[in-house]
C-alpha cells in the first residue's frame, strides 16, 4: 500500500477512534406498545441508553475520554476523566429533568479492557493502554399526577 492511500487511512482510523465517545440513544413512546414499567405510576415515555468510553494509561491515567459536560457532548477530553458513573448519570438526570419524567430501571454497566499490552497474551496485568467504558440504561416514565410522586 503506498503512502497516498496509507496516510488518509490512518487519519480516518484515528478520527474514528477519537470521534463521538459519548453516545445517547432513545426510543419513542410507541416502542413500549402501552406497556408500563412495574412499580411505577404512569406511562413509559422512552428508553434511554447512554455510554461513554475513554483510553487510559495503566487503567488509571486518562488519555482521551468523551466529554459529558453540557454543550460538549460529542466532543472529547484530553487527560481528563469523564468516564465515571456520576458523569454519565448526570446526562441521564438532565434528560429526565428536561422531559419532566421520572427516571426508572437504572442499570449501569462498567467494563475495562486492555487495549495494548507490554507482553501480549499474558493477560491484563501488564497492560499499558486500556479501554474503559460505562453504560447506563434507564426508562423514563411520565408521572400520572403533576407532582411526579406516586399516589
Amino acid at each position, binding site marked *: 500500500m503506498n503512502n497516498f492511500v496509507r496516510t488518509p487511512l490512518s487519519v480516518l482510523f484515528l478520527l474514528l477512534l477519537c470521534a463521538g465517545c459519548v453516545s445517547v440513544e432513545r426510543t419513542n413512546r410507541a416502542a413500549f406498545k402501552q406497556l408500563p414499567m*412495574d412499580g411505577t405510576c404512569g406511562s413509559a415515555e422512552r428508553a434511554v441508553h447512554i455510554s461513554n468510553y475513554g483510553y487510559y494509561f495503566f487503567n488509571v491515567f486518562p488519555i482521551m475520554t468523551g466529554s459529558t459536560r453540557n454543550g460538549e457532548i460529542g466532543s472529547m477530553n484530553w487527560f481528563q476523566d469523564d468516564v465515571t458513573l456520576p458523569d454519565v448519570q448526570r446526562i441521564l438526570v438532565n434528560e429526565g429533568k428536561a422531559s419532566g419524567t421520572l427516571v426508572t430501571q437504572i442499570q449501569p454497566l462498567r467494563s475495562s479492557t486492555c487495549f495494548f499490552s507490554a507482553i501480549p497474551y499474558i493477560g491484563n496485568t501488564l497492560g499499558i493502554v486500556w479501554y474503559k467504558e460505562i453504560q447506563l440504561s434507564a426508562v423514563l416514565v411520565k408521572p400520572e399526577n403533576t407532582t411526579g410522586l406516586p399516589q
Partner: protein
Amino acid sequence: MKKTFTSRCAFSAFLLVMLTGCATVHTASNFDGTKTNGARTPRATISVENYGYYLFGVVPLIAGNPLCPNENICMMFSDTVTLQNNQRMLSDTAHMFNARALANEKTTISWTGSFSFWVIWRKVMHTSAVAVQ
C-alpha cells in the same frame, strides 16, 4: 485447486456466520408459581439481541431484521441495531405472554472490531426485561 476450494469453503463459512441469527428473542417462562420482587406475577424473562456489521463502525453492511426475529433474516445496508427496534421486539414478546408491565429492563451495547483490524465492526445490542402480569 485445493487451495481455491479451501478458501471458498472458508469464505462461505464466514458468510454463513455473518448472516446467521442476527435478531433473536429468547424467553423463559418456567417460574413455577414463584413471585419476583414486585407483587405481580412474572410471566416470562425476555432476552432480545440484535447485531450487525458496520464499515469503520459507521456504515451499516448487514444487520438483523427486527420484524422477523429468530428467522435468520438479515437486512443489507440498513441500521436496524437500535434501541427503538429492541424495545419494540421486547414489547411485542411481552404482549404474547399477556403481560401488563415490564420490570428489570436493561440494555447493553458492545462493539468489536479487532477481528478485522478495525475495518469491519460488529455491534451487538442486548435488551432484557421481565414481563409481569
